[in-house]
C-alpha cells in the first residue's frame, strides 16, 4: 500500500489506531515461550524474506499490478510457525525498506499484514492443518486448510485496505480519478501466485531449511532484473523514437513538435474512452509516427504557395501510404499501422487515401484525426496565427459527424477540460524562408487549394 493514506485525517488515524490495537491485542497474549530456539530462527528468516520481497515489487503487467510476493512469506509461516508466527512475519512490514512510507502507512501496513497473517493461521489451525515441518504423509491433508487460509488472508488484507481507502477518500479532497486498471482476474491470479509460492516455500523448508528462501528468491530476483532491463529499454525506445520523429520534422519550421503533441492528444482520448493500456501505448506511438510519410512528399510541394496542381495534391494524399511503407516492418504496431494509414479519412467518406466512412475507419485512425486537426489549429502557421483552444474546440464540434467521430470529439473535449493542453511555444518568425510550409494539409479550417482541371 503506497500513498493511499497520504496526509492523514483524524478519522483515518482512529481507524489505523483501531487496527493496530486489535492486532496487538490478538497477537501479544499468544504463548511464545513454548517455542524453541529454532522457531525464532525460522521466524527471523521468514521476516527477512518478507522484507526483501517487499522492498521493490516486480512490475509484471503494468505499474498498477506490481507483483511483490511478500505475502508468500506470511503464508509459509502459517504452515511452518502457526498463527502467532504468521502474525509476526506480517507485522515486520512496519520496518519496510521502502523509505517513502510515512509513519501512518507503516503502522497501518504492519497491523494489516499482521492481522491477515494471524487470521489465516487461525483458519488453517481450525481446519486441522498440520503446523510445523511438512512430512510427505501430510501432503493431501494440507491442501484444503491451506487454500482456506490463503483465501482468508486475501479477504482480510483487501478488506482492511478497502476501509483505509474509503476513509482517505471521504476527506473530500479532490483526487484524480483513479482508474482501477488491474482487473479482478489479474488480482486473483496474483493472489493465487502468492499462495502457491507460500506453499512451495513451506514444502522446501522440510528438506533444505532456510535455504528454501534462497532457492525461491533466485528466480524472482532474475525476474526483477529482467523487468528493470525492460523498463530501461522502454524508456530508451520512446526517447529514440521521439528524437527520430523530431528529425523528420526539422524540414518544416511550423510543424515542429506536432508529432509529439498529436501523440499526447491521442493518448488523452485513449485514456478517456478507457482503452486497454497496451493499446493506449500503441496509439501514442502511432500518433508520434502518423506524419512520417510526409518525408516522401517533395519539399517544393509542401512549401508551395498558391493552388496545387492535381499531381501535387495526389502526392500529398499519398503521405499516409508512404508512412505505412516506412513503419510496416515494426512488428508490434499492427493496429497502429491502420491508424497511420487512415488518419486522413473522414466520417462522411470524403477523406483519403481510401475514402472509408464511419465505422469502416479503424478506431486508431479516428482518434488520431481528432488530435491531429486540433494541434494543427492551435499552432501558428505561416498564413495565420494560432487559434485559441475555445475556437479550435468549436471547429472540432462543427466537424463532428462529418469529418470526426462525434464520440471521440466529446471524449477529447472532456479530457481537455480535465487535463488541459500545453500549447506549443509560439513560433517566432523563422530565421530562413526555406523551412516554411505555406499550406497545412492537417488544417480543417483552411483546406488545401487544388486547381480544378476539366
Amino acid at each position, binding site marked *: 500500500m503506497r500513498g493511499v493514506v497520504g496526509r492523514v485525517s483524524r478519522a483515518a488515524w482512529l481507524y489505523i489506531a483501531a487496527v493496530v490495537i486489535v492486532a496487538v491485542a490478538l497477537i501479544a497474549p499468544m504463548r511464545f515461550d513454548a517455542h524453541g530456539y529454532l522457531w525464532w530462527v525460522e521466524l527471523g528468516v521468514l521476516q527477512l524474506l518478507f522484507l526483501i520481497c517487499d522492498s521493490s515489487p*516486480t512490475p*509484471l503487467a503494468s505499474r498498477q499490478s506490481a*507483483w511483490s510476493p511478500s505475502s508468500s512469506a506470511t503464508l509459509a509461516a502459517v504452515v511452518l510457525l502457526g498463527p502467532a508466527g504468521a502474525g509476526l512475519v506480517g507485522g515486520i512490514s512496519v520496518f519496510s525498506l521502502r523509505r517513502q512510507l510515512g509513519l501512518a502507512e507503516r503502522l497501518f501496513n504492519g497491523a494489516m499484514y499482521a492481522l491477515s497473517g494471524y487470521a489465516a493461521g487461525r483458519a488453517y489451525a481450525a481446519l486441522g492443518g498440520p503446523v510445523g515441518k*511438512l*512430512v*510427505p504423509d501430510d*501432503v493431501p491433508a494440507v491442501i484444503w486448510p491451506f487454500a482456506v487460509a490463503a483465501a482468508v488472508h486475501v479477504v482480510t488484507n483487501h478488506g482492511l485496505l478497502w476501509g483505509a481507502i474509503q476513509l482517505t477518500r471521504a476527506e473530500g479532497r479532490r483526487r484524480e480519478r483513479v482508474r482501477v486498471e488491474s482487473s479482478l482476474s489479474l488480482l486473483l491470479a496474483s493472489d493465487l*501466485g502468492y499462495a*502457491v*509460492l507460500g*506453499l*512451495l516455500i513451506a*514444502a*522446501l523448508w*522440510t*528438506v*533444505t531449511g532456510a*535455504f*528454501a528462501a534462497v*532457492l*525461491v528468491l*533466485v*528466480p*524472482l530476483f*532474475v*525476474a526483477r*532484473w*529482467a*523487468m528493470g*532491463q*525492460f523498463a530501461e*529499454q*522502454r524508456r*530508451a*525506445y520512446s*526517447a*529514440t*523514437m*521521439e*528524437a*527520430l520523429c*523530431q*528529425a*523528420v520534422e*526539422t*524540414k518544416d519550421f511550423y510543424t515542429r513538435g506536432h508529432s509529439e503533441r498529436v501523440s499526447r492528444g491521442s493518448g488523452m482520448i485513449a485514456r478517456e474512452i478507457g482503452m486497454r493500456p497496451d493499446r493506449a501505448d500503441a496509439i501514442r506511438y502511432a500518433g508520434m509516427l502518423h506524419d*512520417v510519410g510526409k*518525408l*516522401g512528399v517533395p*519539399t517544393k510541394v509542401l512549401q508551395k504557395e498558391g493552388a496545387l496542381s492535381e499531381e501535387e495534391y495526389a502526392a500529398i494524399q499519398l503521405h499516409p501510404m*508512404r508512412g505505412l*511503407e*516506412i*513503419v510496416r*516492418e*515494426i*512488428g*508490434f504496431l499492427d493496429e497502429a499501422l491502420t491508424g497511420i494509414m487512415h488518419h486522413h479519412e473522414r466520417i462522411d467518406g470524403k477523406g483519403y487515401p481510401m475514402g472509408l466512412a464511419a465505422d469502416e475507419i479503424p478506431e486508431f485512425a479516428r482518434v488520431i484525426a481528432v488530435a491531429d486537426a486540433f494541434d494543427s489549429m492551435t499552432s501558428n502557421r505561416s498564413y495565420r496565427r494560432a487559434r485559441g483552444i475555445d475556437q479550435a474546440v468549436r471547429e472540432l464540434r462543427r466537424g463532428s459527424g462529418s469529418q470526426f467521430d462525434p464520440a471521440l470529439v466529446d471524449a477529447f473535449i472532456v479530457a481537455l477540460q480535465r487535463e488541459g493542453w500545453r500549447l506549443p511555444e509560439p513560433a517566432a518568425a523563422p530565421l530562413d524562408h*526555406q*523551412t516554411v510550409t505555406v499550406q497545412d494539409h492537417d488544417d480543417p479550417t483552411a483546406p488545401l487549394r487544388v486547381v480544378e482541371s476539366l
Partner: protein
Amino acid sequence: MTGEATATAQRSAERWSSWQAMDSGRLLLLAAAGMLTVAAIAHSATVQVVAPHPAVAFGVLIALGELLRLALPGGREAAPIATAGAMAYALLMYVGQLPGHGRLDNVSPLQVIAVAAIAMTIGALPHMAAGRPVGLTGMASRLVAVSCVAFVFRPLTGIGVIVSHWWLAAAVMTVLVISGCLIDAVIGALIRADDLGARFGVALWDEMRVQWPLGAAVGASAMIIVFAAETMGIAGLAVFVVPLLVTQLAFRRYAGIRSTYLQTVRALARVTEVGGYVEGGHSRRVSVLAVAVGRELGMSEPDLLDLEYAALMHDIGQLSLRDPIPGGATVLVSRPDQQRIAELGADVIAKAGVLDRVAELVRCQSLPARGDSPQPPVGSRIIRAANAFDDLVGASADRDRSVAALERLRLDTAYEYDAGVVEALSEVAGRRRFSRL
C-alpha cells in the same frame, strides 16, 4: 510427367544443398544428440521403465516447456521450463508419496535422456505445425547438456552420504547445473561462431553474458523441483515452476522491447531513402556490412548493437539538408559537408539522451582514420569504410565492381581508411556471407 519429375529432382537437389550448407559443427551436434536419443530409447525399450509416474509427469513438463520457448536478445532461443524440468529429472533423488519410500536411485541416465528426448520432440511438434522453425539445434544442445548432468548424477543417487545430506546434494547439484549451463553456452557459441563468422572466444563471452541470468533461474528452479518433490510428490510439479514462470514472463517482455527497438530504428532509418536522400536499401546494407566487419574484428555483442544502430542512422543528418545530395553518396561530397552531415546526425541521435555512444560513432564517421585529430573509435572507422564501399558498389552483386571499390579504399589506407578495417571488409565482401544474417 517429366515436368513433375524434374521438379522433384530439383527439390531434392535443393534439400541436398541445404544439407551441404549446414556446417560441420552443427552436423556433429545433431549426430551426437541423435545417437544419444537412439541409444537411450533402445535401452528403455529393452528394460522396464523404472518409476513410470515421475517419468510421465516430467515428460509432460518438459514438453510444455518446449512449447513455451522464449526468444532472447540476439536471435537466440531458450526453453527455460523444459531445461529446468529435464535437469530436475536428471537430479531427482526422492519422490514423496511413491511406494517403496520413493527412492529413485535405479532410474538410469539413459531413461532420463529418453524421456527428455521424446518430450522435447513432442513439444516441438506444435511449432512445426504452426510453420515456425523447429529449433533442432537448440533442442540438441539442451539434450546434450542434460545428458552430461544425468550421466554424472544418476550414479551418485546410490551413495548414501549424498542422499542423506541435503546440503551435500545441493552443492553437487549446483556444480552440475552450472556445468550444464556452461556446456550449453559452449555449444551455442560454437554454432554462432560458425554461423556468423565470429571469434569463438568473443562468442562464448557474449553467450554467457546473455544466458547467465536465465541460467541461474533455471538452475535454482531445477533444485526447487528436486527438493519440493521430496515432500510434495510429483502432483505439484506445475506449482514448482511458478517462480520460473514469473521469470519467463519478465524475460519475454524484455526481449520483446529489444526487438521492437531494433525494428523501429531499422524502419525509421529508411526515412532518408523514402525522402530521396540516399539510394534505396543503403542504410540497411551499410549496417549489415558494418556489423559483419565488426564481428570479423572481434567486437562484442553490445558494441555490435551500438555499431548497428549507428550504421543504420549514419545518414540521418541529411534530413536537415534542404535538398538531397545527388545520388545520396556522401563519399562524393566535400569534407566540410560530410562533417556537417555527421554533426547534424549525431545531434539528432544525442537528443534521445540514451544513445550517446551511438551519437559519438555517427559524429566521428567523417574523420579520416589517420588525420591530425585523435583517432576516431573503431566503430566510426568501420562505418566510414562500409559507407564508402556501398556508395561505390551499391546493391550490385558484380564481383569486379566490388574488387575495384576495395582497391580504391586500399589506396586510401594511408590517410582516409583504417587498413585493418579495409582488410576485414574485403574478407567479408569476398565471403558475401553477411547476406545470410
